[in-house]
């Protein structure tokens, strides 16, 4: 379970695009915009946060991962190096056709342990054509010069659009570290 936050006016890593792809409400939307599973489940505006967000989290917890993922991280100077091993178990072929993507979101751990971390930088990489049951190794590198090495944290999210270009994304799996 991981909570992360972004500035809606300076979104990183195409994550806000996931929320917008999932939104089919033509009416006015209000902040905050929230999502789980890359937009499989979204909400917005002033709500009964505990109930609505709690239900979103519960629904996500009930859904098994559709990919295996292991991430090895290392930092060399200002570069964070993330080597991702992805095992596709989605039942579909992952490719550019369904915008299968790896996204690394990086932040500095807040001093206040109660504070929600704010994403500082992001990198994305397309997942190469990967049939169900096969694996790939993909490398992501992010410049993290502004982040304290001892407090740098990251999450790698693998997602895709299972139902077509104009439909919601869905998370295959995510891994956080270090």
């Amino acid at each position, binding site marked *: 379970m991981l909570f992360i936050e972004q*500035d*809606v006016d300076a979104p990183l890593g195409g994550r806000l695009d996931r929320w917008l792809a999932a939104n089919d409400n033509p009416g006015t939307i209000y902040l905050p*915009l929230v999502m789980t599973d890359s937009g499989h489940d979204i909400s917005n505006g002033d709500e009964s946060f505990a109930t609505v967000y709690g239900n979103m989290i519960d629904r996500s917890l009930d859904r*098994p991962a559709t990919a295996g993922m292991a991430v090895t991280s290392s930092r060399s100077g200002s570069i964070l190096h993330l080597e991702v091993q992805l095992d596709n178990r989605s039942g579909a072929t992952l490719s550019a056709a369904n915008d299968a993507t790896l996204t690394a979101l990086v932040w500095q751990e807040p001093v206040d342990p109660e504070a929600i971390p704010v994403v500082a930088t992001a990198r994305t990489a397309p997942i190469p054509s990967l049939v169900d049951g096969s694996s790939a190794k993909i490398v992501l590198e992010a410049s993290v010069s502004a982040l304290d090495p001892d407090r740098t944290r990251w999450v790698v999210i693998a997602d895709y659009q299972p139902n077509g270009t104009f439909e919601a994304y869905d998370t295959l799996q995510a891994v956080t570290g270090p």
Partner: protein
Amino acid sequence: MRRWLSIIAIVLVSTITVSAQTLVVPAAANAEGVNQTHWRTDLQVKAMGEEGASFTVELLESGANNSEPESFERTLDAGASLRLGNLLDTEFGFTGTAALRVSAATGRILVSSRTYNDDPEGTYGQTVPGIDDSLSTSFGESATLIQLSRSSDPAIGFRTNVGFVNLTGETIGVTVELFAAAGSSLGTVNRNLKPFEHRQVNDVFHAAGADDVVDGYAVVRTVSEDGHFICYASVVDNGSGDAVFILGATEADPTPDEARLVVFESFLRPG
């Protein structure tokens, strides 16, 4: 109508083709049962293929640590078959119940047995096959026994005995969960098995706290990571003493779905 209790009734007509060198006959007896029954086991071993075979028979006594079992050896010419009548007595001088481990040192062998009530008016019993490792059950797998029944009236219906053979040199734990036909759980029986121990739980539904079970089944697993065993059921007609031998059908337990890391993302304006 004959009634007999306490001793397993075992036998079969086995046609298992042997590819492994070691086979286990998971139940055998040389023991007196109720109602003047006399349980005996005959073992049959045949050399397969065009070569002769030499083999060892080891006695895995019920309830015992069988790390150093009693044994004897025999040889067979090509194409020959050998019947060892009441071998627990004639070869081992043993009284009681046991399993038998038959290992081929050379050649290939086919093994079967019959355990029966040696009644002067005619024998009856069940065939117990020699079982190779491919039919055993390991940690992470389950063995399912079907066609089980229990009557709370010992004069009618059936009773079910479930037996195990530990195939490892370590003590292992096994659990037997019993179910009604529709899948509702009726209870669980747990046992620890010493190295290479044979153990039988008689009237297993009663041991699990169940009463009458017209149609039930059991799922047997080991809780020990290195556990490896054979299990069977012997379902006995309370009225006639007729019994059938049922070997556990093994399959791998389903792999639990990998959990998804839930990432809750929010977008807002700072401040």
